[in-house]
Each structure stands twice: as structure tokens, then as C-alpha cells.
């Protein structure tokens, strides 16, 4: 039950952020990007038990990026629009808060471990986007060279 509430609230929160980032004239982009955000959270919840925090973030963000790139090709829009909206449920806002809280409390062990964890998550998110966009670039190059060969 809690998970369902989380996914639904992720969806609506992403729609709010789509408005903040000025998607006003194309509501379908806002909805598609927000669906990406909930999708990412569902995959995170499915994978966290077996893979741990950082790897689950990597897998979930890869799925979000893949979804965004496919939607970008289908709707002829830049993929950034969907990635910016869809990454928000995974971005380590909680990590930043907890790191700061442990620092204030003077709990140095927990501070260092949560700082490292936050940085690792941030890198995992960036790496996932990197992997997927490299994949799509390679596909594009192969397609164009195949066209040249056939013509």
C-alpha cells in the first residue's frame, strides 16, 4: 500500500515540477515525463532488495533514460525534457538532508558513510544517462552508415 502511494505521489510531484520548469503549452510532455518518474520509482522498489541502493538507482535511472529517449524519438522532442522531469524521484534529496543532519549531530561515522552514499548515487544517475545516450548515439551512427552503404 505504501509503495502504491509513493508511486502515485511521485507522479503528481513530477507534474508539479514540470510546471515549475515551464512545460505549459504541451501537457502531454508533462504527463509522459511524470510517468517516467513513477516508472523509475517502481523499478527502484523492485530492484533495491536484491541489488542494494546504488545499483538499484543505476538500473532505475537507466530505465528512465531509455524510456525518455524512446519517447523523444516517437514525439520528436529533445530527450532532456523527459529526463529532467523523470529523474526527480531518484535524485538524492534525502541523502543531502541526512548527510547534513549527521554533520550537525556530530555523528561522524554516519556522516561520512551517508556523504559517500549520496555522491555514489549522484554518479550512478549520471552514469546511467551516459550509458543510454551512448547506446542511442551508436545506433544512430550505425543507421546512417547503413544508409550510406545501401545507397
Amino acid at each position, binding site marked *: 500500500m505504501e509503495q502504491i*502511494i*509513493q508511486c502515485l*505521489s*511521485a507522479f*503528481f*510531484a*513530477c*507534474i*508539479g*515540477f*514540470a*510546471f*515549475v*520548469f*515551464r*512545460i*505549459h*503549452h*504541451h501537457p502531454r*510532455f508533462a504527463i509522459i515525463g511524470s510517468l517516467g518518474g513513477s516508472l523509475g520509482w517502481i523499478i527502484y522498489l523492485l530492484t533495491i532488495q536484491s541489488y542494494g541502493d546504488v545499483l538499484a538507482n543505476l538500473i532505475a535511472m537507466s530505465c528512465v533514460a531509455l524510456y525518455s529517449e524512446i519517447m523523444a524519438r516517437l514525439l*520528436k*522532442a*529533445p530527450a*532532456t*525534457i523527459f*529526463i*529532467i522531469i523523470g*529523474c*526527480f*524521484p531518484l*535524485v*538524492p*534529496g*534525502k541523502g*543531502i*538532508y541526512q*548527510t*547534513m*543532519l549527521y*554533520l*550537525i549531530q556530530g555523528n561522524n561515522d554516519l556522516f561520512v558513510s551517508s556523504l559517500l552514499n*549520496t555522491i555514489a548515487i*549522484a554518479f550512478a*544517475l*549520471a*552514469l546511467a*544517462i*551516459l550509458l543510454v*545516450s*551512448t547506446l542511442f548515439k551508436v545506433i544512430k551512427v550505425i543507421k546512417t552508415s547503413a544508409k550510406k552503404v545501401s545507397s
Partner: protein
Amino acid sequence: MNEHELFKCIGEIGRLLLRHSAEIYRVEESLKRMCKSYGFKDIGVFALPSYFTLGATLHDGSSPSIIIRTIQNRTNLDCVYELNNLVRYICQYQPDENYIKKEIERIKNLPEKMKLVFLGYGIGAGFFAVFFGGGLSEFVAATIIGFITYFVVWLHEILEINALVRTMVTSMILSACAIISYHFHLIHLLQSTIIGCLMVLVPGMAITNSLRDIMSGDYISGQARMLEAFLTATAIALGVGSMLVLLKGLI
């Protein structure tokens, strides 16, 4: 067709793309492709997160160059989409400069619905508070704090205060509001309310864009974005942390 005017128009499209925070490689590639489609030669583009130069040799043999610096960045994904469509159209059909000017004016004057932005801050903060484990009272409190955040950000934009100070002051104000409402027992979970409200400040975009830039070979831009992400996160932590220390008696 006046090629110098055309060249200026292309520069203006690049400026708008950069200003509304498109990725660096998108700015460079769009400029390069537009120049190529008009048959300009010796195209040189170099872009940073707040600056670009564009040079080319036109058909009459002259080689103008454009240097543009944009300091103020505001994310506007609608504009990025429209500009992307315009670039696509230009590369395909090579319209003349009057058409491009008209389109640029149209995109510049796309109405920003500030009511929707205001609503977005509230909805975003409220639902993220629920997302991080809050209940109904946290949702209501975070939504109201989200609305307050909108006014704080708006004030900073009018006064042209730099982004790091803006992030810090905003996170200070929102955590102070959350702590005060916690003190009067309006909310029961301080943590989820604060995290939900500060999600809108978290540098998600800088994190996601930085490695993309590095991948396409823009090491300087990627580094700049990474630094931006790190400093923004530090500013958030400083803002929230200072309020948690100062208002310790109320918790």
C-alpha cells in the same frame, strides 16, 4: 536573402537555447547544423554553460563571428522544444531570415503562465512530502511552504541575486517554516516535510547534464556543471543545517 542577417538570427537561436538550459552539445550541434544547411564554410563553434562563439565564412567571402554571453539562466523546457523544432525546420527547408525572425519573436513571446508555476511549486513540494512518508498534515504544510518558496524565488529573480545565495536563503526560509509548524504541532514528521520542500532546489538537472557533456568531449562544461551540482547541494545543506541549529529550541 541577406546572409549577415541570417547569421545573426542563427546566433540568436543559439543564445536562446543556451539561456533556457539546453545541453551544451545540443547548442553546438544545432548551430553547426544550421550553418551547414545554408552552405556556410569553416564553421567554428565553442560553447560553455554561459557563453558561446560562432564563426563561419559566408558565400560572399566575409567571415563574421558572434560572441555571446548569457549570465541569467532560466530553465524553460517549452522554449527548448520549440527551438528544437525550429532548428529542425531550418535544416530541412532553409527559410529566409524574415521567417526565422518571426519565429524567434513568437518563441520569445510564448506566454509564461505564472499561475501554473506557482501551482507547480505547491504540488511538487506537497506530493514529495507524501513521497517521503508524510501524511495529510505534512502534505498541506509542504504545499503551503511550496507556495512561499515560489515568492522567495520570484523575489530573488527580480533582485538578480546569484543562484547559490538564492538556494541557501530559500532553503533557510522553508526549513524555518517547517520547524515552526512542527513546534506548534501542525505536522508530526519534520524530516519528510523539509525534504519534500527542498526537492525543488536539488540540482537534478546539473547532475544529469554534467556527464552527458563530458561524454561528448566538453570537459570544461561538464566540470562546470558538476561544480554547480556540488555547490548547490552544499548551499542546501548549509541553509537547512543553519536553521536546524539556530532553531534547535523549537524542535
